[in-house]
């Protein structure tokens, strides 16, 4: 097995873990964390492809990862803000309680 495949398998596993968490956790914050993990799996892929790709000097993978991290930070801030706002309304972070879009 070559190193790139290993990296990709690892990131696939990471993605699946994130997916499993996002689909099965009740706590909205942990669902968000699961989504972050999926994003991280993608980042790992980018880095792996950059490292073992034909043209590492172009820095494409690194750039994509940096932007992705930046966006993840924004996403986390807004996501947690929304969770706080919802919590204030429903008194719970349990996603099973958030079953209506109306306030």
């Amino acid at each position: 097995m070559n190193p790139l495949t290993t990296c990709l398998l690892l990131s696939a596993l990471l993605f699946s873990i994130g997916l499993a968490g996002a689909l099965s956790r009740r706590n909205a914050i942990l669902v968000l964390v699961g989504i972050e993990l999926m994003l991280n799996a993608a980042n790992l892929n980018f880095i792996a492809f950059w490292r073992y790709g034909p043209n590492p000097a172009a820095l494409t993978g690194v750039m994509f990862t940096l932007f992705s991290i930046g966006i993840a930070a924004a996403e986390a801030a807004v996501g947690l803000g929304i969770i706080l706002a919802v919590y204030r309304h429903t008194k719970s972070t349990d996603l099973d309680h958030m079953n209506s879009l109306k306030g």
Partner: protein
Amino acid sequence: MSTLTLDPIAAKASLLKKDGGQLLEVSMGPQHPSTHGVFRMDVVLDGENVVKLKPIFGYLHRNHEKIAEDETYLGSMPYTDRLDYFCSITNNWAYALAVESLAGIEVPERAQYIRVITAELTRLQNHASLVGFLMQDMGASGTPLMYAFREREKILDLFESLTGARMMCNYMRFGGCRVDLPTGWLDQAKKVVAAFPKFLDEFENLLVSNEILMARTQGVGIIPAELIVNAGITGPLLRASGVNYDLRKVDKYGIYDRFTFRVPLGDHGDVYDRYMIRILEMRESVKILEQAMRDIPEGPFTDPKTKVRNFRPKPGEAYGRIEAPKGELGFYLISDGSPNPYRYRVRPPSLINLTVLEEMCLNRNIADVVIILGSVDIVMGEVDR
């Protein structure tokens, strides 16, 4: 999720906020570095804001009043030292004043002067250390406190050479004082008092215009004048809220009408005012001390006619009160003609000044609670008695 379980009391008080957040009930004390003794505050916090505060005391209750009723009049005198153990001499004076008015005892001139001198020295050391403690509560890592304690030590040394004890002085007697001033004592006291304004200047340089101090204390813990009068609060707290009431001026007990001094008044009634009022009062006390030490006459230090043994005042009642450093300290006595009082009651300023603690602390930060309590100036020996 949360493993912080609610206390039963807190659960009863329904500690859920309207917006779903959770309130936190914290028991500040009785083992807390800033409660000035074994005092406890049941604080309900929203984040760090106080939404409810319940003072709880009694940890130091010693049954002082009841014991005094089984004790001779003189036998209670050392006990009064332990009320406000910072200012034993003023406690003695208030008690002596009550007994003197009960038994109709005249106090000789020299004794009056000695009383004023020792009482004002007590006020100096109480206020100085209070300001130090207040700074300590504000987190100034002890420097102002140590400065204040340096001055306090000098005054305590004076007390020690006069009475044999540094804090539990047991100095006053009905009709005068226990012993006369030792030779050279007055000179020593004059030196200490003369050096005191320098210390105050130094202290003010260090603290008064400190911006952190102003930010921490100005506008914090305000009590309006109306509330403070209704709550019966006395002493520097009352004057910081702008009410001109000083028993030294109102009652003119002892010989206070002979001295010229002013009563500083605050306009805001916040912690900064209380702190400044105390500093200004120290300056006025220095003035009184200078006058008293200049004018002190020779003569007997105690009323020779007063019986020490078998002291039985006529049946009746009396209330003696003084302006103690913390406020109006009063002793109410009923005599039935026996050697011990029928009823003995203390009006402790510390306890009564505590009554508005919740009003001062509501919607304030937990850090404010500590300095508000510090600015009230309590001594648990007096609160719990």
